[in-house]
C-alpha cells in the first residue's frame, strides 16, 4: 500500500512552473530518492507534501488520507517528519533541547499541567529526555546532548536536524539534503544508519540529495525531476543507465557511472 501518494500536483510561482503534473507513489518501508538539478522543484514538492506550499492542482494523500487544507503541524501529526534544506533547528537551544521541542506532538500531558506543575508533567519530562537521548544515540550524537548549536559544524547540524525529525516519531521521514557538509566517511555511515533505521524504526523515507552515488546506493526507487516535471522514475540501476537522465542531470560523469 502506498503510504504517500502525490498525483498530478502542479504549482506555479508567477510565470515559473515550479511543479507540473507531478505524480509519485511511495510504499511502506521504501527509501525513495528525489534527484534533479537545482531549481528542479524537489524542495517545492517537499513543501507541497508537508503543507508549507499549497499546490494549484492535484492531490496528496498520506496513509490514504487526503491532506488538502491541512496545516503543516497537522500533517506532522499524521506521521510526516521532515528536515529543511537549510538547517531547521532552534538556534538558541542546545542539541537536547531541540529534541525535546521536536517531541512536542508526542507529549501527552496537557499544556496547563505543564504550566501549573502537575506531577504527571514532571514524570513525563523525564521520559521525554530519555527518548531524546535515545534518538541522539541512534545517530551517534548522544555525546553532544548538552552542546549549544553554535559550537557545531554544518554537517553535524544537519545530522542533529535528522535526529529532531526522528524525534517527532514519524512514519514517513522526508530529508532535504541530509548530507550537506559531511565527508565521505560520514556519508557512508549515514547511509548505513538510514538503511538500518527503516527496519528498526519502521520508516518510509523520502530523500532529496545531490550526492548521486549515495542515492543510487540506499534508495529502492529514484525519481528524477527537471523543470518541475518527473523526467524519469525507476530503480537505481535503471536510472543509472537512463540516457535522458544522464543528459539532463548527470552530464559527462554519467558515462563513468553507467
Amino acid at each position, binding site marked *: 500500500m502506498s503510504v504517500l501518494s502525490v498525483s498530478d500536483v502542479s504549482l506555479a510561482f508567477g510565470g515559473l512552473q515550479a511543479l507540473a503534473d507531478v505524480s509519485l507513489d511511495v510504499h511502506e518501508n521504501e527509501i525513495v530518492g528525489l534527484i534533479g538539478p537545482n531549481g528542479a522543484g524537489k524542495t517545492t514538492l517537499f513543501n507541497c507534501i*508537508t503543507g508549507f506550499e499549497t499546490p494549484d492542482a492535484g492531490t496528496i494523500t498520506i496513509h490514504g488520507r487526503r491532506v488538502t487544507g491541512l*496545516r*503543516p*503541524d497537522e500533517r*506532522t*501529526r499524521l506521521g510526516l517528519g521532515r528536515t*529543511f534544506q537549510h538547517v*531547521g*533547528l*532552534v*538556534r*538558541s*537551544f542546545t542539541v537536547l533541547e531541540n529534541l*525535546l*521541542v*521536536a*517531541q*512536542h*506532538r508526542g*507529549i501527552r*500531558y496537557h*499544556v496547563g*499541567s*505543564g*504550566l*501549573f*506543575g502537575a506531577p504527571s508533567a514532571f514524570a513525563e*519530562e523525564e521520559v521525554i529526555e530519555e527518548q531524546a*537521548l535515545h534518538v541522539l*544515540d*541512534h545517530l*551517534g*550524537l*548522544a*555525546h*553532544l*546532548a*548538552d*552542546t*549549544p548549536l553554535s*559550537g*557545531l*559544524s554544518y554537517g*553535524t547540524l544537519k545530522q542533529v536536524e535528522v535526529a*529532531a525529525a526522528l524525534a*517527532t516519531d514519524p512514519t514517513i521521514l522526508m530529508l532535504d539534503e541530509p548530507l550537506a557538509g559531511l565527508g*565521505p566517511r560520514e556519508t*557512508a*555511515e549515514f*547511509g*548505513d*544508519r538510514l*538503511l*538500518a*533505521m527503516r*527496519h528498526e524504526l519502521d520508516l518510509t523515507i523520502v530523500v532529496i540529495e545531490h550526492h548521486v*552515488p*549515495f542515492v*543510487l*546506493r540506499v534508495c529502492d526507487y529514484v525519481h528524477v525531476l527537471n523543470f518541475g516535471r518527473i523526467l524519469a522514475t525507476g530503480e537505481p540501476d535503471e536510472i543509472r543507465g537512463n540516457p535522458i537522465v544522464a543528459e539532463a542531470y548527470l552530464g559527462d560523469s554519467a558515462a563513468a557511472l553507467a
Partner: protein
Amino acid sequence: MTDVLAEPIPIVIHQAPVHRRERWRPSRAGRFVRMAVLAVLAGFVVASPHLIGAIRINVLSTAATSVIVALSLNILIGYTGQVSLGHSAFVGMGAFTAGFVISTLGMPWEAALVAAVGVGAAQALAIGLVALRVRGLYLALVTLVYAVFAERVLFNIEAITGGGGGIEATRPGWATGDVTYAYLCILGVAAVWIFDWRLTSSKAGRAIEALRDSERVAASWGINVTAFKLLAFVLSGAIAGLGGALFASVEQLIAPLDFAFLGSVTFVMMAIFGGVGSRPGVVLGALVFSFLAYGLERLAEAFPDQPINASATPLVAALLVLGVLLYFPGGLAQLLRPVFRWLSFGPWKSLPSQLVGEEA
C-alpha cells in the same frame, strides 16, 4: 565517490558507545555555599518590607508589581521575540478592572484579582490576533497605538474608570497594612516567577521559544503556530493584568495618568536592560528602574551639599541603559551570567568541553 558504491553494505546500526557527558555538579561544600547565599538572598527579600522604612514601603510594593509586569513582557519579547509597546495598557486594563469590581460592583478584592487576570488575558488575545498578521516593528506600532488609545479613550470612560479623578481600589481586608500588602506583592512576584519557570521548562514554553526562531521548523515538529503564539499573548496579558490589579491597591487609587503610554517604554527598558529571555535578569532590570528614584533620593539625603536630585532619574536611567547595552548587549543577564549560573548550582565559568565537544 565511487568507493561508496563498490561494496554491498552490511545492515548494521552504529550503536555509538558514547553516552551523554556527565553533568557538572558542585561539590558538597559548593552546594552548601550556594544554598547559604540563596538563603541570604531570600532572607533579604523577606526582610525588605521592614528594611525599607514605613514612609517608602509603597515604593517596594510598586517595584514588585513592576517586576511582575516586566516578567509578563518578557514572555513576549524574550520568548516569542515580539516587542509590545502596549504593556501600560495591559496593566491599566487589569488595574481598572480591579477598581471597577471593587468600587463599583462592591465585590471582594479576590474577585477583582481574578477579573483583572481574565480581562488582561482577553485584551491580550485581541492584540495577539493582530500579531498573527503583523510582526516586528509593525506589531510594536500597533501595540503603541493600543496603549495611546487605552490611555486617552478607554481609561476615560467615566462610568467604568471614574474618568480623570480615578477610581478607588481598596486592599483586601486581611492585607490593609502597608507591610502586609508589600508581602502580598512579593508573594505575587514569587508566584509569577514559579509560573514562568514552569512555562519555560514544559512543552508550552519550548514551543513558544521554538517559533520565535522559526515558525516553519516549529510547525514541522507538530507545533500549532497560531495557538501557541496566541497562548504567549494570553499568558503575558494575564500576568500583566495581575500586576495591574496588585498595582491598583498599592495607593488604593488609580487614575488614567498612571497608565500613560510612555510607561510601556519603561517596561521595555526594564526587560532589555535586565536581559530579555532571562528571568533573573529581567527581575533585576525591573528592580533597578523601580528603585532608581528612591536611590537618588537617599543619596541626596546622605550628601545634602552635592548636586544630586531625584528629578535626574530619567537621565540616570538613560545613561545606565546606554552604558550596559554598549558593553553587554544581553543586558545585566549577560554581565551577571557567571553569577546566575553559579547560583543555579552550575559552575562559575562555562565549561570549555561544552563548546568543543564535537570531536570528543
